[in-house]
């Protein structure tokens, strides 16, 4: 509430990002659609970026899921408690929406950790590619391996968080990451 009093008379553009978000969220919770549009403009790129990488660079699907994320955010805005940054809350919501979409594709669930190790192959030296090559190689990974790699190595999630989000054991998350890295190295070495 103090934040509201402090920011009431200051233009949004002059506020630090977190305070600006908080002020816009309060206005949006009060039913001001224009305030929520500003939140969309400020955060669409980050949310869409995370979703795009998780769905393997499928742009049409990513745009659809980004819409879902913002519609969900609008509906759940009243439950936002200002304990974390709005950007973090929204990013997490977007990631969850993408993961829910990925959970439908459970074609790899039966694969055990031994199989994952074998699929990862040996230590193939990794020659770094251009960003585009790397993005394409990540996008071509199997769904769950890609999800774990993107969450861990790109978005900075911990294995415990990934295992909770994807409904798998921590050990499976580690094995999937090992497999994903191996497949990625191999794909880039074969270029």
């Amino acid at each position, binding site marked *: 509430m103090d934040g509201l009093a402090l920011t009431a008379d200051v233009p949004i553009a002059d506020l630090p990002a977190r305070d600006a978000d908080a002020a816009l969220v309060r206005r949006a919770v009060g039913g001001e659609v224009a305030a*929520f549009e500003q939140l969309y403009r400020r955060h669409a790129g980050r949310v869409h970026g995370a979703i795009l990488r998780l769905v393997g660079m499928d742009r049409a699907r990513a*745009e659809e899921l980004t819409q879902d994320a913002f519609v969900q955010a609008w509906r759940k805005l009243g439950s936002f408690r200002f304990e974390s940054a709005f950007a973090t809350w929204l990013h997490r919501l977007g990631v969850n929406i993408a993961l829910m979409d990925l959970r439908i594709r459970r074609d790899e669930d039966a694969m055990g950790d031994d199989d994952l190790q074998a699929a990862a192959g040996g230590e193939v030296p990794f020659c770094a590619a251009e960003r585009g090559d790397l993005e394409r190689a990540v996008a071509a990974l199997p769904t769950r391996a890609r999800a774990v790699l993107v969450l861990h190595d790109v978005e900075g999630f911990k294995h415990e968080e990934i295992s909770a989000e994807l409904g798998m054991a921590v050990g499976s998350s580690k094995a999937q990451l090992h497999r994903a890295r191996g497949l990625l190295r191999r794909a880039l070495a074969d270029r």
Partner: protein
Amino acid sequence: MNIDNEFAWRNELRKLGGAAEPQRDLWPQIAARMAVRPATQRWRMGLGLAATLALGFGVATLAWRTQSANTIPIAVTATAHGATSMAADNAPLAWAVPANPALATASRELDGASVQLQQALEQQPQAVFLVGLLNRTNAQRMRLLRQAPSV
């Protein structure tokens, strides 16, 4: 550039992160979807209204039974009939939908509630609490109309 160590590997992958703007503006579709109340919420509202009506009906029945031991509540009955005819005159303001999508949704909800209450009053013309609910709903609808210019 060759990368063959863990640190550099992580660094390259980390660079994939960050913003990637959608190729088109998604806002118009998001705004359109925001205006539509989800089915589960509509169901909950319906359930809430039904619960309110059931509770009110129970209270009214109890009050009527208590009073009927002494006298027939002529004034209450008359008020209920008067209000029923007033409710019939108060047709839903469906023609006056606010331009703001969020307010338009709210006005449609109120119109729907008003119709349901009038139907309930036709079934239970002696239910005074329904008249109160209907009057309150119509008052909220009028307030909404005054606050927001219609389309």
